Structure formats: structure tokens, C-alpha cells
């Protein structure tokens, strides 16, 4: 791996989050995410990984959050501040969910949707975006002849790659992926992982993997989160060979979780 000097793209500082049903989801988490790297959030489910992910694009605004404190600095700007333009923020941060949810439209419209929300009407620009994003998500060859078909006709793996392509249309700087391959077969999973590997050249990637093995395959940096707390944050290779904390070791070796 080319070890160019790594740059912090997102800095989470002392982030705590509590939902109104009393569940404390994150406890005083401080964690950097690096540019042009795959940043993996590892840990058992219900530990707060998704909450952290959804804080980064303020999607948690839609959930029943009771209290949130701390800072999330993206390029040095705290996006939790009330003056943040969340629409602008979400365009800058693409997101892929664990279930491949295609919008009830054609393949093409799924990709142009984000751009059309911005008011983009230029046909050429929209067409270019469709082609570029489908290439980036390694889906173009499979769907190029049926762009106007309903996206729902695609297979699960294709749908998820369409979701990835869709999230790239607004030219984001960060891509958040919440267990993007949890419902996919191994071949589709490898295709998605392959796309991430090439996408990281241009993006900051934050990935919640669906297995420890996937974390091992993909992570440049890996944060182990347990019950809302950051236990350890290490470069990926060290995380799986030489973690410093016993809990981490137990988890990556499969003794719990």
C-alpha cells in the first residue's frame, strides 16, 4: 500500500449520543477518519456503529435522538452545529444502506435522482453521470442496455451496486456504507469490495462491514466499537495481527460477538 501521508477527513470528537428511549448509543467517542482510506467500524451489532455512521451525514436528525454532544469536524467544520446546511452536507456524503433499497423508478432515474434534486436539468450532464457512476460501481456492462427498465428487476447484488452508483452521482467526498453486503452472495460481495478498493483513490470511505473477515479484507484503518465505546483504533493489518487490548483480540479471534 502506498503510504502517502494520510490526511484526516473527518474528526469525531467526544461524541456522545442518546436516543429518547433511553438507549445510550455512543459514549464519548473520539476517532479520525482518513482521506483515501477505507475506514472500518468493527464491533458487535447494537454497539452504535450505525448511529455513528448516521451522525456523519446527520441522517440521525430523522431519528428520535434525545441528546447529542461533542463535535464532528469534516474538513475542520463542525457539522453538528445548528447552522450546518444539512442538504449540502448530505450531497457531500454518500450513503449506502444494508438493505439494497432502490427507488421505485428506472435504473437511470435512480442515479439521476440526487442530481435532479439539486435542479440539474442538463441532459448531457445527467447522461454522463449515469455512465460514470455505473462504471465506478462496476455495474455498467450488466445494465447498459436496459437503463430505462425498472430498477426493481435487478438482482440483489446489482441493486446494491446501483445504490452505490446512486450515492456517487452527487460527487460526494465521503461514502458511508452500512453493512452493504449483508444480503449478498459471495461473488457480489467481492464485486462491491473491489469497487470500494478503487473508489478509495478519490473518496474517504467509512465502512461498517458485515463480518470480521470482510473487515480484515478491506480495512486500511479499523476502529473497534463495543457498546458505544471506542475500544481501539489501529491500522487494519495491526488490528487483526497484533491488537493491544485483550477485548479486541478476543473479538477479532471470534471469542465473542
Amino acid at each position, binding site marked *: 500500500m502506498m503510504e502517502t501521508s494520510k490526511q484526516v477527513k473527518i474528526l469525531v470528537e467526544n461524541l456522545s449520543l442518546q436516543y429518547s428511549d433511553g438507549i445510550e448509543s455512543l459514549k464519548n467517542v473520539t476517532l479520525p477518519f482518513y482521506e483515501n482510506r477505507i475506514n472500518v467500524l468493527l464491533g458487535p451489532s447494537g454497539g452504535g456503529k450505525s448511529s455513528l455512521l448516521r451522525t456523519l*451525514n446527520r441522517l440521525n436528525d430523522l431519528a428520535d435522538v434525545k441528546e447529542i454532544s461533542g463535535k464532528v469536524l469534516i474538513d475542520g467544520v463542525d457539522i453538528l452545529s445548528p447552522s450546518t446546511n444539512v*442538504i449540502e452536507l448530505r450531497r457531500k456524503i454518500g450513503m449506502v444502506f444494508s*438493505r439494497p*433499497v432502490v427507488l421505485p423508478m428506472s435504473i437511470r432515474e435512480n442515479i439521476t435522482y440526487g442530481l*435532479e434534486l439539486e435542479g440539474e436539468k442538463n441532459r448531457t450532464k445527467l447522461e454522463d453521470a449515469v455512465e460514470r457512476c455505473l462504471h465506478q460501481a462496476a455495474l455498467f456492462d450488466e445494465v447498459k442496455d436496459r437503463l430505462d427498465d425498472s430498477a426493481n428487476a435487478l438482482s440483489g447484488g446489482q441493486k446494491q451496486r446501483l445504490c452505490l452508483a*446512486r450515492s456517487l*452521482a*452527487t460527487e460526494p467526498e465521503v461514502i458511508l456504507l452500512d453493512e452493504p453486503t449483508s444480503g449478498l452472495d459471495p461473488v457480489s460481495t467481492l464485486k462491491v469490495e473491489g469497487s470500494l478498493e478503487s473508489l478509495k483513490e478519490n473518496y474517504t470511505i467509512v465502512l461498517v462491514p458485515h463480518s470480521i473477515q470482510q473487515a480484515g479484507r478491506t480495512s486500511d484503518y479499523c476502529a473497534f466499537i463495543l457498546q458505544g465505546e471506542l475500544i481501539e483504533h489501529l491500522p487494519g493489518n495491526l488490528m487483526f495481527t497484533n491488537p493491544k487490548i485483550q477485548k479486541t483480540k478476543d473479538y477479532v479471534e471470534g471469542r465473542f460477538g
Partner: protein
Amino acid sequence: MNNSENEYGRRKFIEKAGIIALGGMTILTIAPIFFIVGYIIYQGSPAISWEFISGFPSDGMKAGGILPALVGTIYLTVGTAIFSVPLGIGAAIYLSEYAPDNNITRLIRVAIINLAGIPSVVYGLFGLGLFVLFLNFGTSILAGSLTLSIMTLPIIISTAEEALRAVPQSFRLVSVSLGGTKWQTIRRVVLPQALPGIITGIILGLERAAGETAPILFTVAAFFLPRLPSTPFDATMALPYHLFVISTQVPGMPVKIQFGTALVLLVFTLSMNLIATTIRSRARAKREW
């Protein structure tokens, strides 16, 4: 062994008897519908002719056609739609997408449900008080449409809200995560998906309005008018009220005309019902979630 075989036979008998009993109840439920419709067609169809549809009543309503009543009912249905559709959809969108989940919202929902339970004659009386007298619209299509709108609104609001809520939350999340505002999300994703359900609710609501007698009794309906209404401030004849009049108020009325009128009203409302059902089943077949 013998004993358990007996037991098995007994259970099988009970099973069969149960199916027959339940099936019989179903037949008893739908039989009156077929009987009513069949009887009205049998008695009414001899009256149906172009003259009946397009002519004015004559000979003290004992002959001639029902044009003014038919036109009046169409006007009232359209008038009701003009007021109740935008209001109803707007309220449904607010309740489903924007309203906070608190006691006030719950109170509003309860009020809407109860509004649907108010007897229609009470709506009529209310319309008389508010629209005809207080707002001084007189007995007019305007007053009648407004009264019918109030009666139709709860149906439209509840079905539309239900249709909106049925759209998966994940669509909303995706749209918002792509930088959509709430309104963009509603307009581009939620509404198109909910539209068939909303339209079905609208049609069913309007169908009820078209067939009601009590709400128009005090607010718009005329016993007999020799001409068609020309402005929203005119009174008009209407099919349900006309049917009431020729069935009870006119001695020596030919049965054929009574049932002919009933048949026209029935076809009017049933065809609306048919349209609603078609829209719903088409949309279900096309739906992708």
C-alpha cells in the same frame, strides 16, 4: 387405536361442518346485494332510454326524464371534489409526514375518525346553519358541495394518510440521504407511490357524497326545477333526493320511473366504485414493495 380413529373422524366432521357453516354465512351476506341489484335492473331497465337520460320530467314528474337530477348530481360530485380533494390530501400529507407524534396529533386523528361517524342528516343541518343561512349562500350548489365536502373529508383524509404511511420508510431515508428536502422526498417519491391509494379513497368518498340524500336535503336540493342550474349559487335537483321525492311525494308514480331513477343512481355510484377498484388492483400489481 379404534378410539383415536373415532376421534379423527369426529374432528374431520367438525372441520367440514365449520366450512359449510362459514360458507353459508358468506352467501347470506352477499345474496341481498345480488338480489337488490338484480331487482332494480329488472324493474328499472324498461324505463331506460335516451329520452329518460336526456329529458326533463313532465306530467307532474310522472313521465319524462331525469336530466336535471343527473346533471345536478354530477355538479355536486364535482363541486365536492373541488373542495375536499385538495383539503383532504393536504391534511393527510401533514398528518402522515409532518405532524409530531404527540397528544394534539392524536386528538386530531380521533376527531377525524369521529367525524366519519356523524350521521349524515347532522351534516345537512350543519350545512343549513353555516353555509345556507350564516354565510348566506342560500340553497345552492355551493352550499351543498361544501356540506358534502365536510362529510367526505374524513374518508379522504384517512385513506390518503393510510396510503402515505404504507410507503416504506426506507424510500424516505434514501431520498433524504441523497440530499432531498422533506418536500422533495414527498413530491418525488412518497406521493407517486401513494397516489393510487389516495385516488381510490377520493373516489370512494365522492361516491358516498353522490349517493347521499340527507346532507343535500336542506342545502341544495330542489323538488322540481324546469331548467338546469347555471351558477354555483343556483339550487339544483339531484338523483338521491329526486328518488326520494318520486317514491314518497308523488301519488300515482309509475314504478318503472322510480326504479329507472334508482338504476341510474346505482350505475353512477357503482361505476365510480369499479374505477376505484380497478385503479387499486392495477397499482397493486405494479407495485414494487
